[in-house]
């Protein structure tokens, strides 16, 4: 069963396959690391590396890209002791995006190798028992941390410290649930004294407040629950709206040959499931062209809106048909990842290197990809690039990983709040213990989504440990 083409799949989809991805930030850099993991590593190693080697550890030599050797350093890991628990290969290459892309493609040509989906290396580490779920999410979060607060939280997550916090909550809630269930299921036992409503309310409140605090001050806030905002930016008439429509697959934005056609900021959700795996989507914004000379009411308002949106951007797609990419960086924080797209690749351009779609290293930098939105040429590469920068955006995958936690903890806190409302602290016994238990159980289930299921047997076990039950 082979699906054609090296399409990324959902993380953990099938770990009989070998995955490959660029492990460092996109764009130009001194060195880039490409990582492979899976059973075909050995084959890839012997067919792409000269001199052929399969030793564990570090090795210098050449990788073959399109038949031509390119100097590289290779780090070979052997499962199950590697990070992912499988055979791994890390190849350090010169940081040229096109070279890297061609190497990744060469890897995909090896039987059984395909591109990795986002987070798939950590997913494998998790599936192979090398990481706990919360730790795996922490690794992604460390990479993406935006602020030092984020980083601290992410490191807590990676070290399992946050997991311990969650486990403490789950532990306390399971105990409370056991005390309530004992009052229901063993009420005919005179040894069982149901928990006092007042005590229950106090203990529940304590956990709920801790949850609220965590989700307010800590990591969870960086996840607003919205997909990352990716902005198409560039000079007027750079072809942003054409690209916007082409990516969305429908004519959302008005396109015209005149410059300055777009006056409003348009934001649409762009699903990137095919390019990057399930659930991944970004909010894609089409901006009016940036023009410092714009004057007059409407034009100026459009500029202000554009700049305001750019400030909020999690990632930027810089469109320039000339492939020069100058002038924009000044307005954008260096921490915001950027994909440089040379638009209108069907037009001849002085800056365009023949055949490669690759601009020379001018002052502003060169394109990561050239695209022709009109006929769809390389549109898939742009999609993949967008997925890449979105995930690397500060808080990007932090948001993806931690949003899940925040969501579950939020749900748990919510359920607890409802439970507290059911409790009359002045009463001698719970009026509707089955409803209190129901709410508590949903809170425990939510935590179980992060920690693993907490079963009725866990609860019943605590009853027996606490009470002398049995007539």
């Amino acid at each position: 069963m082979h699906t054609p083409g090296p399409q990324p799949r959902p993380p953990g989809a099938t770990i009989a396959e070998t995955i490959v991805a660029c492990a460092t930030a996109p764009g130009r850099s001194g060195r880039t690391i490409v990582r492979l993991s899976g059973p075909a590593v050995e084959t890839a190693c012997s067919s792409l590396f000269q001199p052929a080697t399969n030793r564990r550890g570090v090795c210098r030599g050449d990788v073959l890209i399109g038949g031509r050797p390119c100097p590289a350093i290779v780090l070979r890991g052997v499962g199950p002791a590697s990070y992912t628990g499988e055979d791994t290969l890390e190849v350090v290459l010169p940081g040229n995006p096109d070279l890297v892309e061609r190497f990744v493609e060469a890897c995909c040509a090896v039987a059984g190798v395909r591109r990795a989906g986002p987070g798939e290396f950590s997913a494998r580490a998790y599936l192979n028992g090398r990481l706990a779920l919360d730790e795996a999410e922490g690794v992604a979060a460390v990479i993406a941390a935006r602020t030092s607060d984020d980083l601290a939280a992410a490191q807590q997550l990676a070290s399992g410290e946050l997991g311990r916090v969650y486990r403490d909550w789950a532990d306390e809630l399971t105990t409370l649930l056991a005390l309530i269930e004992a009052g229901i299921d063993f009420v005919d036992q005179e040894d069982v004294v149901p928990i006092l409503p007042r005590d229950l309310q106090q203990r529940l409140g304590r956990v709920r407040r801790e949850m609220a605090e965590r989700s307010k001050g800590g990591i969870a806030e960086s996840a607003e629950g919205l997909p990352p905002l990716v902005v198409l930016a560039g000079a007027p008439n750079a072809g942003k709206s054409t690209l916007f429509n082409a990516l969305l697959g429908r004519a959302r934005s008005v396109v015209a040959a005149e410059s300055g056609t777009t006056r409003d900021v348009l934001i649409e959700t762009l699903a990137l499931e095919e390019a990057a795996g399930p659930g991944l989507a970004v909010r894609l914004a089409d901006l009016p062209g940036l023009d410092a000379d714009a004057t007059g009411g409407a034009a100026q308002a459009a500029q202000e809106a554009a700049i305001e949106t750019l400030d909020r951007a999690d990632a930027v797609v810089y469109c320039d048909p000339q492939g020069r990419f100058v002038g924009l960086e000044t307005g954008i924080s260096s921490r915001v990842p950027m994909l440089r797209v040379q638009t209108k690749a069907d037009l001849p351009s002085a800056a365009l290197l023949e055949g490669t779609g690759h601009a020379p290293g001018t002052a502003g930098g060169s394109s990561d990809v050239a695209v022709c939105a009109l006929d769809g040429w390389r549109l898939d590469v742009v999609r993949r690039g967008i997925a890449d920068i979105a995930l690397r955006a500060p808080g990007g995958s932090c948001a993806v990983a931690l949003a899940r936690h925040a969501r579950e903890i939020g749900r748990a806190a919510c359920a607890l709040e409802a439970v507290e409302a059911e409790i009359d602290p002045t009463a001698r016994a719970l009026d509707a213990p089955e409803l209190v238990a129901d709410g508590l159980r949903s809170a425990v289930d939510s935590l179980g989504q992060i920690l693993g299921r907490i079963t009725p047997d866990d609860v019943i076990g605590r009853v027996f440990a606490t009470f002398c039950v049995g007539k």
Partner: protein
Amino acid sequence: MSPRSREGLYLHIARGALLTHIISSIEPLAQARGQRKPAIPTRAYHPRVRQNYRVIVIGGGHAGAEAAWAAANLLPPQTRRGSAEPRATVALVTLDPAKIGVMPCNPAIGGLAKGQLVREIDALGGLMGLAADASGIQFKVLNASRGAAVRGPRCQNDKHAYAEAVQSLIRSRPEIDIIAASVEDIIVERGCATGVVIKAAASDDATPLHAPAVVLTTGTFMRGLMHTGRTKTPGGRHGEGAATGMSACLQRLGFELGRLKTGTPPRLDRTTIDWDSLPVALGDETPTPLSELSAVEEGPALTLEALLESTGGVVGERFPKMQQIECRQTNTTPEMHEVIRANLHRAPIYTGDIKSAGPRYCPSIEDKVVRFADRPTHGVFLEPESLRSNWVYCNGIATSLPADVQELLVRAMPGCERAEIHRYGYAVEYDMVRPHQINATCMTKPVGGLFLAGQINGTSGYEEAAAQGVVAGINAARLARSEREWTLGRDQAYIGVLMDDLVTKTPVEPYRMFTSRAEHRLLLRADNAADRLTPLARELGALDSTDLGRWRTQLFGDRERALTAARTTIARAQHDGVSLAHAVRQDRLSIDQLRQALDDAGTPCPLPVAATLHAEARYEGYIRRQCADIKRRASEERRTLPAWIDYRTLGSLRTEAREALARFRPTTFGQASRLEGLTPADVTLLTVLVDRARKNHASA
């Protein structure tokens, strides 16, 4: 056929005289079977299989009686050509027919979660609720002050009357032949059970008995060993023997066995207890029956006399049928605890004589004294076991201490200073088949056509046993009719929770039902058992062939009409400016007040209907959420896993997950997700691997 002549028949059969006759007059397989492909592929039908019965049930305890009854509901007696007398379809094989339906431990039916089970058994057309109502001597709804979802109807029974009621009901069915014999072997052909070898009590001749489905309910009898102090007696119940050959037979068939322990307290002589000095424990003023069919008025379709006649006098009389009694309370004392501590070295669970696990929820008194050493006293209920004897059950002091110690400790309880013991408490160890080897139909995975129900699957309790009896009986009958397997989900019934827990968990103690095991507790209430399950029983055809079934159908129709009418009223009619439903939700209307308000609004309804409406209104928001939850999970829950898959080849699964899957062989993804050792990620991965394996399998 009158009860008397049926009795004659089974004694006749017991001598083995009829067997040859039956065997020689076997019909070819039922015509209906020929057309359709058998729905259960593991079952290889032999075209000329000898068939004495369509279902054989081994064991006449609560699981066996219920299994035979459920199978009989689906397998009407067959009329033979040239013979006026219809032939039975179900054989109930038991060592001693007089012991069918006996209560060897606490003579009580129902309770928390167990009451729900009994109501469900009843809603499916079972017998337990009928027998319990006919023999109840004290009725009490536990948790009556709590919400409907956690109320548990319970009754104490006259243990003799209960067993007689069960026997009368079984004997009232022309579908069932009772055969007094021991079972020597299970006949397995081509991997499927096709019968058993029986040996009548007074004979040495082993005779084969054939059927396409065999239900095995061994209770505590498989290598049963009773302990009182250091005295060990082979047997499953006091005064009875053990089944010695069955364990070996099952092992030969490749089953993995386990061993469990349970225990029972001493029985006292009531006349030697200072009864009147002790605090009274009363039942409810208005008893609540366990069966839908007790305590209802005569209907046009069926007269009470007809019902009385057709049920051997069990159903159709006034409710409660028997005189109601009081129980008494006493307690253990520090002096008694001292006696126990001083004699612990003679208690089998501490000497190491008993190694198997007993139930944590039903500890022996020596266990309680050791584990909860700081408690100076534990409560004890003194419950009369029968109206026609002075035996009293000491609820709370199960023990396997030696007889002389039992004398001392009983007399250390207030009011029991001069008490005489009728029967000493004892512990019993017995073999079970580890339940990962059955699926949720009770049929075993290695041997098609062989069903296991009751304590053999590691459960404890009459109700849990009976619940499995229903599932096994229905599925055995359906197998005999070449119909698809039938299961209940966790969201449909406690019976579904029970079966699902059995096939996904490793038992560490005898399994007992608790309401906290049911995640959809608010839906699975005692009051709405009929609404949940009677329509399913009708679909199965379990209510078609008997007067009881027809009566149940009629009563359920009445109930449905009353519910529909009152549901409209409850949403519209006002109470203090809000709708009735709203008032109930705010806890401003009791069930009785709701019933009155419905009556005032022109839609009178019986109390049970008002109770259901009250619960529905009270839990409305919660139920809506649970239903949404159930719907969301439904597709994964019921998605099947192929039986041919070899989990050991799925190398990308974690070892622990792979081993759990290979051991339990779950039939659905829902079951797989509840296996110990499987994480949500494993299940996700499993879906992908199974899809791929399916494609490979299809192309191979």
